[in-house]
């Protein structure tokens, strides 16, 4: 139940700025969860977060096993070839049992649920990408200014 003293959240704009599995999923889960609650949601992918919507890369998002103290494995072990794939496949299995879909399916779900997906123009230009490089669910490539316009009246969440 909503606290009587607070206005319920009606709209969220979520920025996904990282391209690792643990960098991408929180934003997707929050966007989907928002739609489930009837909250307007949009996702803005920027920098390496763009990997989550690049058609050729979105099925290959991996867990970072290096520079990630919460993995609880020594950095040098994390750097062994195949370690990231191994950790990713283990985590994906866990997620599947919790009914958390793969990135592509998750984005389709969010899109079909009425969530909007945007790519950041500055990053798109920097990486020399075009709309064709993205999955079909991506609504548009927008500038930071347009992002703020679209986010007006809601909460912005940076992940």
């Amino acid at each position, binding site marked *: *139940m909503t606290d009587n003293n607070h206005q319920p959240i009606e709209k969220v704009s979520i920025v996904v700025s990282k391209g690792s599995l643990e960098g991408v999923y929180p934003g997707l*889960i929050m966007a*989907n*969860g928002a*739609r*489930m*609650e*009837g909250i307007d949601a949009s996702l803005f992918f920027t920098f390496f977060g763009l990997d989550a919507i690049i058609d050729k890369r979105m099925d290959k998002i991996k867990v970072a096993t290096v520079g990630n103290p919460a993995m609880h494995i020594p950095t040098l072990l994390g750097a062994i070839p195949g370690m990231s794939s191994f950790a990713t496949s283990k985590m994906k299995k866990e997620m599947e049992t*919790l*009914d*958390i*879909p793969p990135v592509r*399916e998750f984005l*389709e*779900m969010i899109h*079909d*649920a*009425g969530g909007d997906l945007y790519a950041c123009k500055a990053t798109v230009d920097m990486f020399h990408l075009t709309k064709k490089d993205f999955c079909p669910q991506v609504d548009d490539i927008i500038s930071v200014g347009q992002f703020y316009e679209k986010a007006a009246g809601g909460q912005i969440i940076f992940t």
Partner: protein
Amino acid sequence: MVVATSPAMTLARDADGNLANRADWTKEIAVQLAMEEGITELTDRHWLVITYMKEQFEAKGDAPSIRKLTKESGVETKELYALFPKGPAKKAAKIAGLPKPKGCI
């Protein structure tokens, strides 16, 4: 002036406004609960979702995730949001006489 009250209004509710006792649920009550959520008519597609949610709850003790619901009921995400606008899992659970779903997905 006569104020029309529905029998559903007199039933015990939990903190979320869902039925406190699942045993109170009937199809007529479901229609009234749907009205409370602004759904004026329950179509066969609504019933498909409601029945599936009830079955899943009875089997698993919690409402299914939206992903499971769409895959197994045959009602796709877009249609689900059209049938139960502003929060399908939550609304379908309420109309089915179940508590609010606990899952995040």
